[in-house]
């Protein structure tokens, strides 16, 4: 397919404003007379709020009002999948940081004083911080229905038979780290009541329509009375899917005749928002002498902390992806999400898949090591292809690019290996080099649930084109990609289309910016909308040219009959005539990829229509004396179906490798201890190597121009590739993240250093 706009390195929409400092994030918005909001948060991990006395705090000059649970007009319960979280505690607090009271004040200082003057008594309850402990019958009960939030099972074939037919069986346990998203923009928003009574919230978010629905329920009003406008969002990575400041802003704006604003400090952002679920994984893998996988049995425990958030999705995704992108005839997986009194865990780039990839990719290398195979060959021997059946019983019909990513990575694997041989000798004592490979697969969109998107393309009598989408661009670049898709369909440049995005007052629901779904799902909705608008114009052009519309070409901003380009009429002229005859053109597009719910006992079903695939190789330097591991080079090959904007895709790959280095080597969030970037280190430019991004395009027939997604896949293979490289360097396996200084120092016995 020849394309003019799709596949091109189009400049990111709004980048000029971003480099000149003109872009307004929520905290940059000027809103005269706004009150400041602050939240009193629980100092204990588990307890019952016995008394809240606000009198002294209310008497402080500048304090306008203090809200508690009893002020919530609607349901004091929210959550993105299962609703179990209170806006302000009505009786129980379940982690250090649970909100109890909300202060609205004229200024920061008064709010600060009021926080100190609040008299709150909490009866402390025994708390539990380990999910295995939390599952014991006598464990403190965090939620009424018990500490087990959810179990996902996947059963296919007969694992016992699979293991008996195996020549080698490996059983290992893995543990992954609790992580913070650490987007550089802390949560922020403003809110006010419009004259007609509607509550309007401008906020940094990945999920405007879900915010709107949840806020309406909290306020006990119809969703039409709440308008959520996404402000420019300074990164999200899943952490801005759950609400943060939204309910506080909405509640205060509901009661007060003043605009309100709220911005989390970094410390509050760390304390009060979701984390990546730490997973405990036991995985048993059986294979033949030739390295053919025969059976995988796994048990997964995800610590979802105090609240469910996306815990159910994380447990499910970890289970669905537990084998890796490989054919395995016999599978038995059980995955649980468990409540504890830790910070709540939610969505973070990959929803459990980056964690489970650590297990399945370590298993692959351990098998290869025992069987004397190279890491690429063992993966190639098992990798999915068209016609393969997944553990949920789904037959993969198209766009299975895993083998191509392995092929593309092989030369880099060989090159890095040669580099090691050439540089092995002059290294300082204790320093070793290693190369590691890891692959991944990732289902695009919600798991086994409908996840529709919608979009509109409008064309007025002047020929002005407007694309309306509810999709929140959080920096990843969906605005640009969606405009490219619309422009390609309409045969115009992206600069000729006006974009209206992520405003519940103006746009319809596109679903969340999560699960790497916007390019694929919203992109397809935009494709449909633009196609319908184009059809209306083609009809008019056909009339004008007196030719069948199937023979009309729409390209380069003109319409003309095939082979008669000299007759071309400008796009705007055709639009004008069409609108004069039939009114404003409005193309409606929707797309909801085919999924089916997973059977509760066997997990059989169609979790996603399509999957992204990737393979990465890293060259790593391990200093067993200092414990320092550095990634020196990396190459990462991603099957994205079609790269709508190759620069954006590469940007995601660089980004994913960087985040994966943090996950693999040093990031770890300790509840109630980690408060700043001083102790929560994220990769700097010095921690990240030069990365070679490789784009593989195995088109997905249901995607717009064949596109799938890449946002989360970019991260997933990184940490396991590093662990495998550490093994190659040291001969030791690391089964627990992060592979930090201490771990590495303890890895190699002194006599080998």
């Amino acid at each position, binding site marked *: 397919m020849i394309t003019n706009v799709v596949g091109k390195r189009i400049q990111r929409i709004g*980048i000029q404003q971003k480099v000149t400092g003109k872009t307004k994030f929520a905290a940059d918005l000027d809103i005269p007379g706004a009150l400041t909001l602050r939240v009193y948060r629980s100092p204990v991990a588990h307890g019952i709020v016995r008394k809240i006395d606000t009198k002294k705090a209310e008497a402080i000059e500048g304090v306008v009002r203090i809200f508690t649970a009893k002020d919530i007009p609607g349901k004091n319960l929210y959550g993105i999948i299962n609703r179990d979280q209170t806006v302000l505690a009505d009786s129980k607090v379940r982690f250090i940081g649970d909100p109890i009271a909300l202060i609205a004040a004229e200024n920061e200082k008064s709010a600060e004083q009021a926080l100190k003057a609040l008299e709150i008594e909490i009866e402390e309850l025994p708390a539990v911080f380990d999910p295995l402990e939390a599952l014991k019958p006598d464990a403190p009960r965090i939620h009424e229905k018990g500490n087990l939030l959810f179990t996902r099972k996947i059963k296919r074939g007969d694992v016992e038979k699979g293991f008996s037919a195996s020549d080698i069986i490996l059983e290992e346990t893995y543990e992954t780290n609790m992580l913070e998203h650490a987007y550089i923009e802390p949560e922020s928003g403003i809110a006010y009541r419009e004259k007609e009574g509607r509550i309007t919230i401008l906020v940094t978010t990945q999920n405007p329509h879900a915010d709107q629905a949840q806020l309406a329920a909290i306020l006990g009003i119809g969703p039409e009375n709440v308008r959520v406008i996404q402000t420019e969002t300074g990164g999200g990575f899943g952490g801005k899917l759950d609400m943060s400041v939204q309910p506080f802003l909405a509640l205060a704006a509901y009661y007060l005749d003043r605009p309100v604003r709220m911005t989390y400090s970094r410390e509050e952002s760390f304390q009060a928002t979701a984390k990546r679920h730490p997973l405990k994984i036991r995985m048993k893998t059986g294979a033949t002498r030739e390295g053919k996988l025969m059976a995988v049995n796994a048990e997964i425990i995800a610590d979802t902390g105090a609240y469910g958030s996306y815990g159910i999705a994380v447990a499910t995704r970890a289970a669905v992806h537990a084998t890796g992108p490989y054919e395995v005839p016999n599978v038995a997986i059980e995955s649980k999400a468990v409540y504890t009194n830790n910070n709540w865990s939610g969505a973070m780039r990959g929803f459990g898949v980056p964690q489970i990839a650590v297990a399945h990719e370590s298993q692959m290398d351990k098998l290869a090591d025992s069987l004397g195979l190279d890491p690429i060959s063992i993966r190639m021997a098992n990798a999915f292809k068209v016609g393969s059946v997944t553990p949920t019983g789904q037959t993969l019909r198209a766009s299975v690019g895993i083998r191509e990513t392995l092929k593309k990575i092989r030369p880099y694997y060989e090159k890095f290996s040669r580099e090691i041989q050439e540089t092995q000798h002059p290294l300082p004592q204790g320093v070793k080099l290693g190369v590691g490979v890891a692959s991944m697969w990732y289902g695009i969109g919600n798991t086994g649930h409908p996840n529709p998107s919608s979009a509109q393309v409008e064309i007025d009598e002047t020929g002005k084109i407007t694309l309306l989408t509810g999709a929140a661009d959080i920096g990843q670049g969906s605005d640009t990609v969606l405009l490219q898709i619309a422009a390609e369909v309409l045969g115009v440049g992206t600069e000729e289309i006006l974009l209206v995005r992520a405003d519940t007052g103006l746009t319809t629901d596109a679903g969340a910016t999560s699960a790497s779904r916007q390019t694929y799902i919203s992109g397809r909705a935009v494709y449909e909308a633009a196609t319908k608008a184009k059809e209306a114009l083609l009809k008019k052009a056909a009339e004008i040219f007196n030719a069948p519309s199937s023979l009309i070409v729409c390209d380069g901003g003109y319409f003309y009959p095939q082979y008669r380009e000299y007759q071309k009429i400008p796009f705007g002229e055709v639009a004008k005539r069409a609108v004069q005859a039939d009114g404003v053109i409005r193309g409606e597009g929707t797309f909801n990829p085919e999924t089916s719910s997973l059977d509760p006992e066997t997990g059989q079903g169609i979790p996603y229509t399509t999957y992204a695939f990737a393979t990465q190789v890293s060259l790593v330097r391990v200093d067993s004396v200092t414990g320092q591991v550095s990634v020196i080079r990396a190459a990462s090959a991603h099957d994205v179906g079609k790269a709508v904007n190759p620069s954006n895709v590469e940007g995601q790959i660089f980004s994913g490798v960087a985040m994966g280095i943090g996950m693999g080597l040093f990031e770890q969030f300790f509840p109630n201890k980690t408060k700043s970037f*001083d102790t929560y280190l994220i990769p*700097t430019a010095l921690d990240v190597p030069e990365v070679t991004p490789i784009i593989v395009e195995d088109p997905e027939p249901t995607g717009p121009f064949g596109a799938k997604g890449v946002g989360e896949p970019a991260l997933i293979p990184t940490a396991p590739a590093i662990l495998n490289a550490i093994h190659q360097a040291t001969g030791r396996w690391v089964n627990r993240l992060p592979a930090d200084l201490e771990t590495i120092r303890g890895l190699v016995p002194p006599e080998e250093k």
Partner: protein
Amino acid sequence: MEEAELGNEIVEISMQVNGVSVVLRTPANRTLLSILREDLRLTGAKEGCGIGECGACTVLMNGKAVNACMVLAPKADGARITTIEGLGDEARLHPLQEAFVKHGAVQCGFCTPGMILSAKALLDENPNPTRLEIREGISGNLCRCTGYQQIVDAIEEVAARKQGEES
């Protein structure tokens, strides 16, 4: 309470901000960042942490990159301050801004103003840095989105261009 009042005495400071003289009276414990953002409405400098760890608030003070969240008002007295707003605008982008656009070195853009100003300070001091020196020069500016590579590419291109001009 008394503690909170400490350093609260009003001071008069004068600065050159983006070439414009500014004189203001402010409590001595306020930061340059809050003065820029709140009093002068120059919101290009961002607050990502408020304690000198992220670099989102980077501005140039007498040509050197500083974290504006760590500079108290009296320290800025008499200083020349350049914020991202003073570097260039859409009609006349600074070469670094142009290169960031060209290389797609921006995702969410929250770190971008600080990143560009750190890059400027680096190139002013070392017009011909290696890629590693570029990485060192921006290592105080955290970016969670880009993985830094396109940023390094952009800065390297400007350095190479400068060098071309000189030779």
